[in-house]
Structures are given as C-alpha cells and as structure tokens.
C-alpha cells in the first residue's frame, strides 16, 4: 500500500491549491480527481473573476485552472490520479479509490476532502422530462464539449450561476426566454443581471415553475407568480414555449464522505446544507481530516482557493517545519477575510460561526 503525507480528494480550485501548498513545503501528496481533467468547475468558467489580484481577479476561470495546473506540475512530490473516485475513508487513514476497474488502497497521514458541491433540484410536475437540466450540466455541455443544449431556454434562479450561464447561453446563440427567480430580488451580482437586461432578457422575480409539458421531451413550461410564502398564485400562469429548462436553484456541499468518515456535521442553511464542524485550521472533528472549498460551505472559487492554500500550509507546518509559517498564514487569512467583506460575506460568516469551534482536538 502506498503511503503519502497527504491525500487530497478533488482537484477543483480548493484541492489544487491545497496540494500545491502542501507539496511546495516538502510533503508527499496524492491528488485524486473523479474527472479526467484538473480544475473542477473552473474549467467551465469563461467569465473573468472578481476578488483581488492574489486570487487572479480579472482572469477567466478556465485560465486560473491552467495557472494552478502549471504550478502543480512543477512540484516534485505530487502524484495525480485522474478518473479516480474516492470510495471511503477508514479510521486508520486508509482511503480506498476506484480507477476504472482498479480498487486501490492508499494510506495517508492526513486526508483533505475538497469534493465541492452538487446542484439542488426542484420538484414540479414532469420534472423528469428530457430537456430539463441543472446549470452545471448545461455548462458542461456548452463549455466543455461545445454542444448547444437546445434552441431556447428558461433559466430558473437568478443567483450568479443562473445569470452567468444565461449570458453564456446567449453567447452560444440560444434564445434565453426568461430568468425566473422565486425570491423578491436578484441574488447574483447586478453587473451580470444588467448584461442580460441590456440584451432584452426578462428577469422575473417572485416567479417559479408550476409545471412542465411535453410528449417525449420538454415543449413548454408553465411559470407562475409566488406569494410571500412561496406558494403559486392561481390565475398568474404564463406559458413559455421552450425545449430547454435550466435549473440553477442553489448548490449544496458534497459532504457525504465526511459523514462516512465520522466527522460531526450540522445543517447550516446559509452554507447550503450539511457541513462539518471545523476549527481555525479547517480540521474536522476527526483528527487529521481536513476540508476546504465548497464542501464546508458554498462560496466562490476565489475563497475556495485561499482555503486550499491555508489547509496545505497548515499540513506542511504540522508534518514539517515551515520557517516563515506565521507570515504566510497571516497573509492567507487576511485574503480570506477581505474576500468575505461585504453583504454576501456577512451572510457566509454567520454560517461559518455556527460550525467554527475553538479547537475540538485540544
């Protein structure tokens, strides 16, 4: 059985950043990725990022993936396994992996779960008709495989993902008929919303899907207005002819593996779902089991990266001495704090307070 200092599960922004920092400071690292490419959701992001220069602001997500990849491949002590799913984490820090048909056991001193998030779904009549997609699937079709998902689309959800994907659909020549949003305001950045509005796409707040119709695939969508309790108001129905409906109704942390590993978890609405209790170093209640990125609360790629760097540095300093540790750590913590300034950050900080403990290992 191969033995590494650190096994990182998931090669998105958080996992890659973590692997870079851990191995840069002398640790042996195995980075495991289910997909056959590095970068996670970054490679679907054709828009430029916000944040500060340290998190590659003004750079397109796909280019950030390339930057991280180059940095990672420069390192000597990192093994990368693509097309590999992590199956389970055991008490003795053995982690089992599946690469095609090969079942592989690996031992680690520490395991970092950076499995990101998955999409929430919506329950409405005929929600299983072909043509109804999650926003992630639409991005994969368009931005990874170059396939148009349909001729026209109704986007459900006006958060950043819904707005950005709507714009990308327009760029791909798909007729975006409307963006519907259940709450009374647009959740995403107004710059993204304004781009859509300038191109004549209506953004309907207080609206949701009532039902979908179609013989063998989606043909029309019925939307309606919602009252203050998010119940549909009869008589307000509108019929939209469309072959595609894209659901962008939020993400939830893909934290199942942490529960399997025995980490104490709790449900935090503002973080998107079930998340682990963590300490300042992002260590869960299981000794040497760490988290970074969306798996411990839905945020953005920028903060996922910084969290990854923090965990990587923490591990490096735990197993080897990092001479300028406190300077490096203070810089990273400041970056994270700056990213969480503002209204959205406040909301996230409230959630993080619910899971942050002084030190559950003391």
């Amino acid at each position: 059985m191969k033995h590494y200092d650190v096994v990182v599960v998931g090669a998105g922004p958080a996992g890659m950043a973590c692997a870079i920092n851990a191995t840069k400071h002398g640790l042996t690292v195995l980075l495991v990725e289910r997909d056959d490419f590095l970068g996670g959701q970054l490679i679907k992001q054709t828009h430029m990022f916000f944040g500060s220069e340290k998190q590659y602001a003004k750079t397109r997500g796909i280019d950030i993936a390339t930057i991280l990849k180059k940095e990672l491949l420069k390192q000597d002590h990192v093994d990368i396994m693509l097309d590999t799913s992590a199956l389970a984490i055991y008490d003795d820090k053995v982690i089992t992996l599946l690469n095609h048909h090969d079942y592989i056991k690996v031992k680690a001193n520490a395991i970092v779960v950076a499995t990101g998030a998955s999409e929430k779904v919506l329950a409405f009549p005929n929600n299983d008709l072909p043509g109804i997609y999650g926003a992630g699937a639409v991005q994969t079709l368009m931005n990874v495989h170059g396939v148009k998902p349909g001729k026209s689309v109704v986007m459900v959800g006006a958060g950043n993902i819904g707005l950005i994907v709507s714009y990308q659909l327009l760029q791909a020549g798909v007729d975006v008929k409307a963006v519907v949003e259940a709450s009374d305001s647009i959740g995403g950045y107004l710059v993204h919303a304004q781009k859509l509005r300038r191109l004549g796409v209506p953004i309907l707040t207080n609206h949701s899907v009532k039902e979908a119709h179609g013989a063998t695939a989606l043909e029309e969508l019925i939307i309606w207005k919602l009252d203050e309790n998010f119940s549909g108001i009869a008589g307000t129905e509108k019929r939209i002819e469309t072959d595609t409906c894209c659901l962008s109704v939020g993400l939830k942390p893909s934290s199942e593996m942490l529960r399997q590993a025995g980490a104490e978890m709790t449900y935090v609405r503002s973080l998107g779902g079930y998340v682990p209790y963590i300490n300042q170093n992002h260590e869960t209640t299981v000794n040497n089991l760490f988290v970074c990125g969306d798996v411990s609360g839905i945020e953005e790629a920028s903060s996922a990266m910084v969290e990854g760097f923090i965990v990587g540095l923490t591990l490096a300093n735990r197993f080897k001495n990092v001479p300028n540790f406190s300077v490096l750590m203070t810089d990273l913590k400041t970056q994270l704090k700056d990213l969480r300034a503002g209204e959205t950050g406040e909301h996230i900080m409230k959630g993080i307070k619910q899971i942050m403990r002084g030190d559950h290992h003391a």
Partner: protein
Amino acid sequence: MNEKDIIVCRCSDISLYDLKKLMEQGYTSFVELKQIARIGMGPCQGRTCSLLVLKELAKFLDVPFETLTPPTVRPTMSALKLKMIAKGKNNEEQR
C-alpha cells in the same frame, strides 16, 4: 397538479405521490424510506434526492428541517463489484 408526475427520487422512480403514501403508512424517517422504497440507494446515493425528501418529511411531521436525521453514509461512496475488491488484494503487498 398531479403528484404522480413529480419525481422526487430519480434513481428509484419515486414520485411525490408515492412518498406521501409511504409517510401516511408511517415511514417517517429517511432510513425507513430508504429501507422500504430504496430512496437514496441508487447511483446518486441520495445526493440528488435527500434534501427534497427531508423537506417533505419536515412538512409532513411539521418539525423544523434541522431536527431531522439525514441518511447514514456507509462505505463505499459509489457502487463497485465485489470482484474489484477481491482483485485489489495486491494493495496489501506493496510497501
């Protein structure tokens, strides 16, 4: 609105109608629903359906969502054949 057309668990093809029927019969925890109807036991392993099912349970029981017990997660995270584990015995012999 026909609740038979609202799919809650795609893997096991369970509709909202089916789910409500099960809850009325007294299966009012995720683990019971899992055992009786295989909800959360398909390829998605509950990743897609669990929040929808828990939301319906909270509504039915009239309790806050946060008080419900989510599904237990056991190894392995995805399905694999026993043959694969058996073939993996060489794992022990490497250093």
